[in-house]
């Protein structure tokens, strides 16, 4: 096992990794920006190093300063958390070249999976179903038109290097395709310095269901079942749960097996997630692999009893997986609400500032992952996530009731949070019945059609 791990991240995930390290008896070094000076999680580290000013580009994204800090503090491994450098294959490779183990997948697997087109090639080889679309990149409009007519409208134009909805367009006819093709290329060129795009079938009101994976460096890969993350607003997840409601066991098991095949095909190890879109007939289509620990990982920890971050660190240290597929059982129902420092009453504007009052919920079946506390100032520089509120109950209806109870107990003053929108979600019949898809929030709450990429 490692002696000392550097955490190249901040906020709740930095705290989450600190906890895993403590549980493993591993020392912890944190790096932080001047915007996070004196933040609560830093006092829990053995050492904390200031690496730059508030803007992430000059601190949490600064390879050289992070690696310099790692070298000077004699850590033997680095945990990237999520976001920032967590899926940066170049950084992962650089760490390993400096004899600092990057706690994540092999960098070549990260590279392949980080490119949507490469990832799809792997999926095909692993016989993982894909959304019907162009085999590869599209050079010309004519080519795009031809394919679009083949697979039938509506179609989605996607940037090969895209993500988070950028460089995406929906086309419902030839005209829409021509205009969308151009604008998607330009947007992708600007955003990712890579204008290559491809086409695929656009699914109406799909569900977003992902499979949690764990693989070791000895060729063993297992899945830890699925999470339903359909409840999103503008591609930002709000609520995640496991098991996915109203998902036939057969479809679930197929997806899980497919995810494992893909991971093996990619020579993947560490924790990872395979994302699928699921249509109304419960057909599932591979979207992408997230080669990192995810925000919503605790949902899976609750239903399986497996500590994913501890396992991720053990795997990076070369240990064999301590679980066989047969050991993994889904027990009860777990749900997560992302509590963000945002104002739902004002179009979810970030609400940075000092938390003057913080009375979090607790008690039976409640887990709270947060770095916040009374007196903590939420800096404006970063992600607005301030807490992950989770419940674990024997059944989904009980989980929903427990989450309502917990949300009602949550008192936060000084900043606005997404607690009210969650209270609304958990008292909405369609959600309670598990009738969710990625357009739920816009359709049900804002009476809009599905928010279409580029619209």
């Amino acid at each position, binding site marked *: 096992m490692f002696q000392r791990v550097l955490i190249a991240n901040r906020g709740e995930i930095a705290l989450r990794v600190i906890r895993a390290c403590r549980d493993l008896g591993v020392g912890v070094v944190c790096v*932080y920006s*001047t915007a996070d*000076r*004196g*933040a*609560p999680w*830093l*006092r*829990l*580290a053995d*050492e*904390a*190093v*200031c*690496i*730059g*000013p508030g803007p992430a580009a000059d*601190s949490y994204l600064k390879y*050289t*300063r992070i*690696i*310099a*800090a790692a*070298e*000077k*503090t004699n850590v033997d491994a680095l945990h990237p958390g999520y976001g920032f450098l967590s899926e940066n294959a170049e950084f992962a490779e650089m760490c390993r070249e*400096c004899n600092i183990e990057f706690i994540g997948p092999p960098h070549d697997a990260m590279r392949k999976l980080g490119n949507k087109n490469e990832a799809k090639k792997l999926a095909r080889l692993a016989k993982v179903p894909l959304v019907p679309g162009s085999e590869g990149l599209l050079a010309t409009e004519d080519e795009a038109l031809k394919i679009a007519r083949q697979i039938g409208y509506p179609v989605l134009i996607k940037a090969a290097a895209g993500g988070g909805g950028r460089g995406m367009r929906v086309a419902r006819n030839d005209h829409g395709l021509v205009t969308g093709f151009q604008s998607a290329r330009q947007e992708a060129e600007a955003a990712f310095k890579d204008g290559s795009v491809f086409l695929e079938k656009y699914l109406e009101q799909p569900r977003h269901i992902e499979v949690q994976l764990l693989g070791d460096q000895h060729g063993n890969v297992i899945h830890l079942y699925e999470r339903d993350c359909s409840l999103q607003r503008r591609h930002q997840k709000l609520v995640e749960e496991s098991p996915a409601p109203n998902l036939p066991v057969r479809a679930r098991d197929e997806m899980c097996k497919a995810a494992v095949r893909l991971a093996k095909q990619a020579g993947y190890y560490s924790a990872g997630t395979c994302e699928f879109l699921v249509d109304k007939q419960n057909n599932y289509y591979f979207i992408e692999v997230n080669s990192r620990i995810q925000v919503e990982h605790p949902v899976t920890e609750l239903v399986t009893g497996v500590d994913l971050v501890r396992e991720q660190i053990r795997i990076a240290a070369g240990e064999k997986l301590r679980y066989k597929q047969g050991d993994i059982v889904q027990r009860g129902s777990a749900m997560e609400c992302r509590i963000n420092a945002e104002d739902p009453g004002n179009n979810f504007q970030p609400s940075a500032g*000092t938390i*003057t009052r913080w009375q979090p919920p607790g008690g039976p079946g409640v887990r709270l992952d947060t770095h916040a*506390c*009374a*007196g*903590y*100032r939420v800096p404006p520089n970063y992600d607005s996530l301030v807490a992950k509120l989770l419940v674990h109950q024997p059944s989904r209806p009980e989980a929903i009731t427990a989450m309502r109870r917990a949300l009602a107990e949550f008192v936060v003053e000084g900043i606005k949070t997404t607690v009210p929108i969650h209270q609304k979600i958990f008292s909405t019949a369609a959600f309670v019945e598990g009738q969710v898809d990625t357009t739920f929030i816009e359709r049900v709450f804002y009476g809009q059609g599905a928010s279409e990429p580029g619209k």
Partner: protein
Amino acid sequence: MADAKPPTKSPGPFDVTTVRELVELMDKFDLGEVDLNDGDQRIRLRRGRMMVAAPAVVQAVAAPASLPAAPVGMTAAPPPAAPGKKLLEIKSELVGTFYAKPAPDKDDYVKVGSRVSTDTVVCKVEAMKIFNDITAKVTGTVAEVCVQNGQFVEFDQVLFRVDPS
């Protein structure tokens, strides 16, 4: 390290512990009166005998009183050992190892008393085998060298203090 200290608490205006702090300060500093305003909030403490309030101290008292706005764990930066005189700071823009001299057998770039100007190289900071010259960016006389040769320095760490006069 300093930044890992437990956060300081955030008293409210009518928090008695705040008032106790203030009164103890009054006692300690033999104040006659303390009068704090925060928006429409006000704390005014006065001794039986009238005395002249020292603005500096009132200010000092006002600082802890305004703590609700301070982020948790905000550390009170240790004031430089400056006897009244205002010193300029040369801070590290890098994370790495501080080298006071160009080579082991050479003299330090600067010592206490050395005159420096904007472009004067005052030290090197090594990060990932790369040695970076650090320039003063201020003009004056080196009053204090805050780190030792070979020491690990972080971003924003004070390396030198310079007397501009």
